[in-house]
């Protein structure tokens, strides 16, 4: 491998990262802007963060988003895990191909279509749009992502673990809760995180299926931006970015530590 820092290498790295992060950096920088004008730098200030916490509308929207996210991610995780179990375990039932295709269709379905069809359904059955319908819609959206994540773990799952448990006297139900579930738990947790994140930043489907009193944060931000970008929105977005970044960093650090510990353990075991 050639490790020299040629001019070409440096240029491509700078351009690449600029393309990815310049808009975000700009957003973060301007969230600390003293001036009310978004594109004019008026000195450093944290006043927009203060005013953000006094903006009842934004705070309400954040609270709605958090609740929708937690509830929909949890329900989607349960349903998605069940779907993944069915698809990997019962490989010979009638219509399996159709079923798996249907579970995974929302992955590639344009969100506008998902949103519109859900809206039509809610109207048809006479459901009042609001918190409940957004949550339902998000479950529909995120369930298939959970199913994909959990399924990929289940495919590599050693079935002899379950056989061993049953051989030792555990009924199928006990085997599931004492062996299968704990072993695939990391995949279920990442499925939940993925579902939560998807719910957190969804604008399209929420716009279709939400109603009065259940405005999510992305909807609120979008509607405010249409009236002009305020530094307050920049501040809200910066906090969101910080939350996500911290989450990702903690997760990957924990993962890394576990991996290192595991390698140390294994080396210790080799020595006896």
């Amino acid at each position, binding site marked *: 491998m050639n490790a020299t820092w040629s001019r070409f290498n440096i240029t491509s790295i700078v351009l690449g990262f600029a393309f990815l992060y310049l808009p975000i950096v700009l957003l973060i920088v301007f969230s600390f802007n003293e001036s009310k004008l978004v594109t004019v730098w008026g000195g450093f200030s944290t006043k927009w963060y203060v005013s953000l916490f006094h903006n009842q509308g934004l705070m309400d929207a954040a609270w709605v988003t958090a609740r929708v996210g937690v509830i929909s991610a949890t329900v989607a995780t349960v349903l998605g895990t069940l779907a993944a179990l069915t698809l990997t375990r019962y490989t010979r039932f009638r219509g399996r191909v159709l079923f798996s295709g249907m579970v995974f269709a929302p992955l590639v379905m344009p969100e506008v279509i998902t949103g519109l069809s859900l809206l039509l359904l809610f109207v048809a059955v006479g459901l009042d749009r609001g918190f409940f319908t957004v949550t339902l819609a998000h479950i529909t959206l995120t369930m298939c992502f959970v199913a994909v994540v959990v399924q990929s773990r289940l495919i590599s799952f*050693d079935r*002899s*673990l379950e*056989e*061993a*448990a*049953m*051989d*030792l*006297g*555990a*009924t199928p139900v*006990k085997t599931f809760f*004492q*062996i299968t579930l*704990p*072993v695939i738990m990391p995949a279920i947790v990442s499925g939940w995180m993925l579902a939560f994140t998807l719910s957190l930043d969804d604008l399209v489907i929420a716009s279709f299926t939400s109603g009065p009193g259940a405005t999510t944060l992305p909807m609120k931000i979008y509607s405010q931006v249409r009236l002009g970008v305020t530094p307050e929105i920049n501040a809200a977005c910066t906090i969101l970015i910080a939350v996500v970044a911290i989450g990702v960093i903690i997760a990957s650090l924990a993962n890394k530590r576990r991996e290192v510990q*595991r390698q140390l*353990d*294994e080396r*210790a*075991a*080799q020595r*006896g």
Partner: protein
Amino acid sequence: MKSLGSIRRDFAPWNDPNAKPYIQFDNVTKKFGDFTAVNNLSLTIFEREFFALLGASGCGKSTLLRMLAGFEEPTAGRILLDGQDLRGIPPYRRPVNMMFQSYALFPHMTVENNIAFGLKQDGMPKPEIAARVAEMLKLVKLEQFAKRKPHQLSGGQRQRVALARSVAKRPKVLLLDEPLGALDKKLREETQFELMDLQQKLGLTFVVVTHDQEEAMTMADRIAILDKGEVMQVATPPEVYEAPASRFVAHFVGNVNMFEGKVAERTAQTTRIAGATGAQIVVENAGDAAAGADIVFAIRPEKIRISSRKPADAVNALEGEVYDIAYLGDMTVYHVRLDDGQMVRASTMNAARVTDDPLSWNDRAWVSFRSDAGVVLTR
């Protein structure tokens, strides 16, 4: 107290017509779709026996084990354990335990909890579980590893945990699926003897599946050799080796020289065989082969003597040329091309450091053997 060896020597319930079979496969057939894994197979295993199912992959040996454990149900026939028909009894209610080829240790549990898992399922009181786990850890010499997780153990240690876990419940029968397959050669040999000791100590019935004939020969009281879902022979290791029932068994277990031929002449004591390529062989015991029948004469390499001159006293002596020599340290294997074209493998123990009859490549040589050294196979 009797030594383990003498217990083993006197143990031969299969020769006793009154002995009650412990495990019985009764005309068992298992099909997976169009594939027949086990074909109308009957087999009897006795209590406290160390029984080996030996065969190449795909011969149905693992399927037999899985049917005994309850993971598969026979398509036809029945399996009896201690007189009880096992049909319809789920794995978690069968008094058998299995040690898996992959060990199948629960990765999220410590060694202790792995071993205690089966005991907890039975609702055994906590102090008793603790005592039993301690006893098992001592048995497999892993006392100081109780709190470790499986991934913190070496391959050999994992194997021991798997073993301890599967015997912790004191099952009537222990099933072992390629128990030593993942260990290296040295460790495998040590563990073979440990397994035999353990079986004697606990007084359990062991059914082990293996594709390694040495492993089966070392450990088992009796071996069943399987091919394509059928039993080829069930016998003790010496019988399997010295008196194979068919060409398949002779070929499968150990090395063998085969001479195709016909029974030329039978007398009360001896039978003369005319080899297809011209060799004349005199044997003492030709079984039920009638005169004129097509047969195969099979003889093990170590029963053939090789020398540079024709031995004066030999009943059977054939001349040829040394084609290849493999020096293995404890013994030397010679490949001799007989003058009629047939290749013969002869092995000699290197009992002395220097041989007084050295043979080299392309030397003329005689291979000779006694009239009772080989067997006549009709199948």
